[in-house]
């Protein structure tokens, strides 16, 4: 029983690292996009403007967070940590 459970856990871990890794803000952005798309579907004009803007906000936040982290690493002289997630 432990074998399949361990395989399931490692598969779940692989998928989490593959899709999310150390950038949970991307997952939050996509979840917000899906929620907003459903809640604004009757407001066509609003949704076609808001969806790309939410995506942009997530991207800007992700880049800003990574830049900030890099500046801290450079300031403290810590070695670069390899990033996880997709390429």
């Amino acid at each position, binding site marked *: 029983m432990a074998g399949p459970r361990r395989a399931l856990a490692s598969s779940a871990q692989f998928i989490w690292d*593959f*899709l*999310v*890794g150390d*950038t949970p803000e*991307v*997952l939050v*952005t*996509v*979840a917000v*996009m*899906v929620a907003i*798309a*459903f809640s*604004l*579907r009757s407001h*066509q004009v609003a*949704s*076609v403007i808001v*969806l*790309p803007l939410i*995506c*942009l906000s*997530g*991207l*800007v936040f*992700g*880049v800003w967070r*990574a*830049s900030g982290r*890099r500046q801290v690493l450079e300031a403290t002289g810590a070695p*670069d940590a*390899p*990033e996880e*997630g*997709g*390429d």
Partner: protein
Amino acid sequence: MSLLLATTGSATSTAAVLVAVFGASAVEMVEALTLVVAAGTRSWRSAFEGTGAALALLAVLTASVGLPLAHYLPIDALRVAVGALLSLMGISWLRKAILRSAGRLAKHDEDAIYARTVSELGAAAVPPKGRDALAFMVAFKGVMLEGFEVVLIVISLGSSSHRLGPAALAAAAAAVVVAALGIVAARQLSEVPENTLKTVVGIMLTSFGTFWIGEGAGVRWPGSDLSLPLLIGFYVLVTGAMVLALRHPSGERETTPAGRA
């Protein structure tokens, strides 16, 4: 007029799907080929066997999970799921591509990865005969990990737009081109403009992701498929603006053997 718009939109969408699949597959296959060639320095036979085993497993995964999902899931639910998946991958690719273009993250250096892998593989003893398990595993893992991403992109983009066949052909064409490049250029894979390809593919995946999350949720984009070029243009502009805003005044950082960083 509406027929002309629909035809133009459909052709644009097909072209965008093919470009996105070809670009994404080429990027992933360059990375896989680096590891296969490195494994081949120990044993070409084992490296090819590892590659073949990974391709077979990917084909089984595609047939047993991907195709039934595409056939039996309601199209709107499929589009939201695919849109979310493409957005996740697209935003992640774009984020790294922007950081690399702006010099805030070391570029992916295939030559350095090749040299490091060959050095690591060279430290272990080569079996006198039979299969070289280490070369087999390095090739298998490389092709499996990079191929998994290609399979996700082909199934996502192909099934949502009812263009699974052309999408698979585009991925196969990328495999042929990269393999030919590998044969001709051997280890000169670092010449492939990988970050540019990743930027283009990241923009495409993010645009398709945004489009299909909306479509699946019931949003009607103005001009239907013709909204895609507008979304692509929007993301091109913001990507360019972010790279310019972030770029170091002193120029780009040195390239380091950062692996998947």
